């Protein structure tokens, strides 16, 4: 049961490399033989020399980041990338989605799909494909969308689980909102689920929880990789209680994204702190879960600054819908949540508080909203850790911001010619806006 990662563009390649690094170092911890076997099968294969090789393909239009990722991997001495599992060119996409989607993508389609196919055929069973990219740039977003489209065509029944990094609000790229709108609207139709990390949120975690003074991209990527790893590493699920789940992506999708209008997933985990203070901290499951639950309902991505006033609206049976429909300020309605617990005494943890039907949209079937996975193996140095993957309203506000900003620019037709010259017409833009407005509307009234 294996996952094939597709690392796209600068961001995707950096996070991908970091993810494999976290996964590998976590699996190599003490007393985790079966855990390691399962994890290795999921993310690596052994080549003829006995080296552990990541099940991943690397695409970028510039060679720099790919060669850095390959070098870092082989320097670790524990794993590496496949020798031919990458493709790069000499010239980038100039932060232009249309350039990546309409020019670079189709031009190199054959080479790229061949690489993906080769990696997929190496798996006895494909659990899913994990394309990783940012939505702001040109290569990751534009070419990434194109590659995802090709993968969907090649494997119509396989699971595609996209990981996206959303840009800083203040912006690195002037047209980042255009790129985001185009990427999201396309991926929403191609992908089975879209897991999102916002740079702003992760940046805050680095600053406030990890106490990093000068935050680099690498620090941000480490946090993202840690969170992602805590989801993807082996765990016992409701369907496989005695052995590690062999179908992690399938089970995750089954519990979270069954409705085609609701595909956006956010992630938060607890605890998160710098390694120096980790040694002096002790956590108990009830405390961790109480915090995590409040983070979920109050839509806080960190344990600091949680609004404790937000509470789950009571479901008044006599008043029926009325009571439920009353908007509680700051309350984050969920569609489905997946809680993953890792560490000591995990069997004592009580997850009942997450099953409160008041937390979920009223139309969801009973028992279909909450799932929990667990393993007693501690993750990445944390004695206990809890992660929640949530299909909820939490991404509504950032998504709305992106669309608004993009629309304001589009209204004055700013930079549109940069896109039309590569064949992305104003009509295409309008279609994408419509798609996203539909998503916003769905999540606003879940």
């Amino acid at each position, binding site marked *: 049961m294996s996952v094939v990662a597709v690392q796209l563009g600068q961001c995707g390649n950096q996070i991908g490399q970091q993810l494999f690094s976290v996964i590998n170092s976590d699996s190599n911890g003490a007393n985790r033989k079966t855990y390691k076997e399962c994890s290795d099968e999921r993310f690596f294969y052994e080549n003829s020399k006995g080296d552990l090789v990541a099940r991943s393909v690397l695409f970028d239009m510039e060679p720099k980041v790919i060669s850095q990722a390959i070098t870092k991997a082989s320097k670790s001495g524990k794993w590496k990338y496949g020798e031919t599992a990458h493709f790069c060119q000499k010239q980038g996409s100039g932060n232009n989605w249309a350039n990546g989607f309409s020019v670079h993508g189709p031009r190199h389609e054959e080479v790229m799909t061949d690489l993906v196919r080769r990696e997929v055929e190496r798996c006895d069973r494909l659990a899913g494909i994990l394309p990783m990219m940012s939505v702001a740039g040109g290569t990751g977003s534009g070419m990434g969308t194109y590659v995802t489209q090709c993968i969907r065509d090649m494997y119509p029944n396989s699971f595609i689980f996209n990981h996206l990094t959303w840009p800083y609000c203040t912006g690195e790229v002037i047209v980042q909102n255009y790129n985001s709108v185009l990427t999201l609207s396309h991926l929403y139709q191609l992908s089975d689920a879209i897991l999102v990390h916002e740079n702003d949120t992760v940046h805050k975690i680095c600053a406030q929880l990890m106490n990093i003074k000068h935050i680099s991209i690498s620090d941000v990527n480490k946090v993202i990789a840690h969170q992602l790893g805590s989801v993807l590493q082996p765990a016992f699920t409701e369907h496989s209680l005695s052995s590690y789940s062999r179908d992690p992506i399938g089970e995750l999708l089954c519990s979270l994204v069954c409705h085609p209008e609701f595909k956006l997933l956010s992630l938060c985990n607890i605890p998160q702190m710098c390694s120096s203070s980790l040694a002096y901290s002790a956590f108990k499951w009830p405390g961790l879960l109480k915090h995590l639950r409040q983070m979920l309902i109050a839509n806080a991505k960190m344990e600091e600054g949680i609004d404790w006033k937000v509470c789950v609206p009571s479901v008044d049976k006599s008043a029926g819908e009325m009571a439920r429909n009353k908007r509680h300020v700051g309350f984050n309605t969920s569609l489905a949540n997946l809680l993953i617990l890792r560490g000591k005494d995990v069997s004592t943890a009580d997850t009942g508080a997450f099953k409160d039907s008041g937390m979920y949209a009223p*139309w969801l079937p009973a028992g279909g909203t909450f799932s929990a996975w667990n393993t007693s193996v501690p993750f990445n140095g944390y004695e206990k850790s809890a992660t929640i993957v949530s299909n909820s309203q939490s991404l509504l506000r950032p998504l709305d911001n992106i669309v608004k900003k993009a629309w304001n620019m589009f209204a004055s037709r700013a930079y549109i010619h940069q896109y039309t010259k590569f064949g992305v017409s104003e009509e295409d833009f309008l279609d994408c806006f419509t798609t996203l407005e539909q998503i916003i509307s769905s999540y606003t009234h879940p």
Partner: protein
Amino acid sequence: MRHAKSVKVKEVITALCKLLSALGIDSVPSAESFRRAKFNQADVTEELWKFLHSILMKVCVMECTYQDSAQSNLDSQSLFVRSALWHCGYGAEWVLEPKAGSLRVCVGSRDLLLAFGWILSSGNPLEFLLEEKAQQLERLSRSALDHMHLLGDGDSQVDVSGTGEGGSKPINGEMQLRTLQWQYGKLKLHWRRLLAAQEERSRLTHRILSSPAPLPETSSTDSSHKTCSTALHKELEQIQSLNATLEAYLNWKSLEPLFWSWMDSVIDNDVSRLDEDAVADVSQRDQGIKRSCSHAEKSREAVKQLNEMVQLLEAELRLGQTQQPDHSLSTQGRHQAQHLTSDRERTEVERRVTTRLQGLRLTNGRYPLPSRAYIPCLQDSQPAYSAHKPQKVESGQVRLTGKLQALDVLRDLKEREALLQWKLELLRQTQREELQDHASTLEGLVLIPPLKR
């Protein structure tokens, strides 16, 4: 060429029959019945009625999601066929204006065969049925959104009140829909997971089987697989049946042009029969011989009526020529009109007008107007367009008479056409409103607009 075609005809029709049976049409006649229908044999009429009923039930009834279970006896079936054909716009006389008495008696098997040809050629009934069939057989490959209409009209018996608060909480339609979409999505994801597991198993099985020393235990695992995969077998059967249907369709598609050329020959038969009837009728009128077939009698009646009309026409023609020869010459410059008075020409014209009027039998039947005003109308509908074909003798002839009231009559006809169109529109509107009213009173019924043809 023609011989090769006739040899292949049976094969072609058999292919069509196979496809129709595969698409779930009941009582599909054999190729031989089709052949007999071409020659209007009475013994296959009943079979064709049933067949048309079955196919129209499938094609039309699906469109308007209406099902009448009390369609068992043949009379009501033929009535349904007639109204369904009328609804689809088929313009044969027996559809538009059936004679009194049972439809089954006065409609021949060739008429029904032609009606079938018409159904087949208008719209894409086969493709429509194929799509329906494929959807039935391949449930899980459809996306959840395709099912919105199915879910929408789901009865309240379906248990979707799964919010944990029990049935006391009212759940509106949209919520039900979302719940079902969610459940459906989950089911589909499970199906895809199973598919991945199946792929893995086949990969591993292949590896075991292709390894140099196959394990003897494989047979025991096989038997355990057999017991646990009845659902898979069912799925397999469905896929095989879908495959067979698709193959039948492909086979039919390759043979379709031949079928249509055969249908042309059926039409030719029909047309030549009309001619024969007309000729026979003239002689029968003199001899006073009566035929027993009511259908033929009906045609004969029409021809008789037309003959009278022709005589009237001739008289008027003559009158027009003798009364205003100068005028006609000076205004229209038709010098050859003078020659038309010759006997030979006149018989020729008479014959042609007779045949032509037979073509217009339908119009004539609906509006019995053998009046002075109507006569040029019958002839004038052609000359207005056939003015570019001066080589035709009758066009000259008709233009000569056309000067009487051609313009008036044209105008009259146009007005009548507009009036009829308006009436038709009005009727349609009322029908639609009635249907909508009816649908709105039935809870849970979703009115799906008819397929665009």
